[in-house]
């Protein structure tokens, strides 16, 4: 009994120590990572407060002020980033688009992680034919570029926001499945899993309470790596006119419509293009950095 208590205390102490060293390492964040974090916080703040801060409604047209210049090109302060071909305020549209694109990326990342981890655990738990089936599915998703798969599904089922988010959720599921399966199998080899199992814990408890926390940092890293890919995928599909449909707007959608005015009004397309690139860049920088810091499979 005393042994258990002291070992629990020791575990708690080492956990605290680990947490402290994590904080210390976070303090020694390189300047580039700090900038990336600040940019992402800014994007999140914009997404959350989109309705409050956007100067106009994003669909509001001002036909007398069509294609007006942004401020830095000599335009007026009424439309800081200029207006588009229907006189809609580019800044307001940008703000709404940021919210839409981030919402989709968050939703899709979470769907992908949940589906992938579940299938990975199922494969690790049942082994045998179930595992082979999951691995065959993994092979299948590696066999065809996801963009093409997504296009096919959109062609057959038509487009709606819910379907679109679910579809993007299937991007990268096979990566989580592979990680979850591998780590769960190796986790079961460890004493703790066998002990919990012997104590009579249900598979739910074993995987949810014991194995999942142990592989969480690896999963979080893969999620930060998949997130920018989903942003790029969403914007790519929307750019092709096959993702988010008007009157809704997303970053890729804005770039797509701005393409028609590339020579006369490049600002319509440049602002969302910059946001897409900067956000994808910041998340992936952060992901790489987190991977180096957190991923136990690397060291």
């Amino acid at each position: 009994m005393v042994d258990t208590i002291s070992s629990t205390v020791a575990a708690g102490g080492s956990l605290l120590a680990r947490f402290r060293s994590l904080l210390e390492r976070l303090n020694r964040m390189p300047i580039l990572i700090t900038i990336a974090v600040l940019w992402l916080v800014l994007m999140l703040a914009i997404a959350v407060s989109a309705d409050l801060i956007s100067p106009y409604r994003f669909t509001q047209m001002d036909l007398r002020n069509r294609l007006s210049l942004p401020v830095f090109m000599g335009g007026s302060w009424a439309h800081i980033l200029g207006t588009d071909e229907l006189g809609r305020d580019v800044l307001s549209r940008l703000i709404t688009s940021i919210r839409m694109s981030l919402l989709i990326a968050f939703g899709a990342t979470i769907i992908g992680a949940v589906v992938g981890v579940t299938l990975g655990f199922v494969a690790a738990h049942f082994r045998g034919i179930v595992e082979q089936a999951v691995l065959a599915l993994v092979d299948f998703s590696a066999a065809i570029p996801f963009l093409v798969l997504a296009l096919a599904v959109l062609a057959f089922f038509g487009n709606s926001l819910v379907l679109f988010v679910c579809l993007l959720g299937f991007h990268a599921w096979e990566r989580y499945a592979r990680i979850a399966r591998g780590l769960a199998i190796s986790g079961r080899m460890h004493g703790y899993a066998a002990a919990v199992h012997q104590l009579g814990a249900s598979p739910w408890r074993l995987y949810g309470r014991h194995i999942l926390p142990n592989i969480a940092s690896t999963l979080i890293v893969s999620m930060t790596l998949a997130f920018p890919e989903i942003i790029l995928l969403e914007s790519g599909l929307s750019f092709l006119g096959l993702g988010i449909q008007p009157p809704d707007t997303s970053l890729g959608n804005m770039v797509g419509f701005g393409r028609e005015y590339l020579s006369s009004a490049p600002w319509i397309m440049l602002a969302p293009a910059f946001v897409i690139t900067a956000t994808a860049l910041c998340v992936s920088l952060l992901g790489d950095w987190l991977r180096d810091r957190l991923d136990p499979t690397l060291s």
Partner: protein
Amino acid sequence: MLHYLLSRLLRAAVSIIMVVTFVFVVLRMSGDPAMVIMGADAPPEAIDAFRKAWGLDQPLWIQYFSFFEAIFSGELGRSMRDGRDVLSVVLERVPSTLALTVPAFLVNLVVGVPAGVYAALHRNSLIDRCVMVMAVTGFAVPSFILAMLLVLIFSVNLGWLPSAGQDSWLNAILPIATMGFGGAALLARFTRSAMLEVLGQPYIRTASAKGLPWSAVVWRHALQNAAIPTITIIGFMLGGLVAGAVVVESVFSWPGVGRLLVISVANRDLGVVQAIVLMIAITMVAANMIVDVLYGLVDPRMHGQARPARR
């Protein structure tokens, strides 16, 4: 080795069966295939004939097998737009797409591999930093944005190159540059880390300790070992090229398969979509199989085993 080849062949076959099954399931789930493929305003006799031709009055499992039969005999249906056989509609676009993807792939290899190797050999130098910045940028800038920036600079502002169409070889420069850059960045990043990993191995230290000149160490020991993981990513890059072609052809109005796919999805010309998806899948599966076989040939440790999962 024979066992390895056979198991790869089997896995490729399973992948293709799954792709066909996927198309079948999606096609059946999205409604009556006769209505969907022929279009809602097709005359009823035509729909009946189609149902009969595709055996849609049969039980589901018979339909499933006849779907396979039809696909492997090359009968993929007719295009909704002009009623032509979809296979010929798709195949006549293939040369245009190859005219972009093959040079882009060469650009990937010729730029990406040397850049990655050089960066790894001169780790933390200025050039290494530059290569890494380019590599990360190449990932973060999506191809449609890069394409439009190139159009903005070289077509709109400088007026050097055409922005759309397929009139002369000048039209191909910007699309190839767009696709070449993204893949080269990815490959450079991957080659660099593969090379760094190899350079940290004990056998490299042994090779230089026994007095081999550094160039011999790099050529004989490092490059050959770094080539093994790099080959695996080439199959993966092919997928990137196909996806890139879809986007880039659309931006530059290049009449290839990718643009056809986007137009067909927008018009819901399902016969064409189905044919393109199957064609891409079969190409990819075949390419991945060739990569796997190459991998087995290059890496003696792999004889008789499946290769480790791609990262």
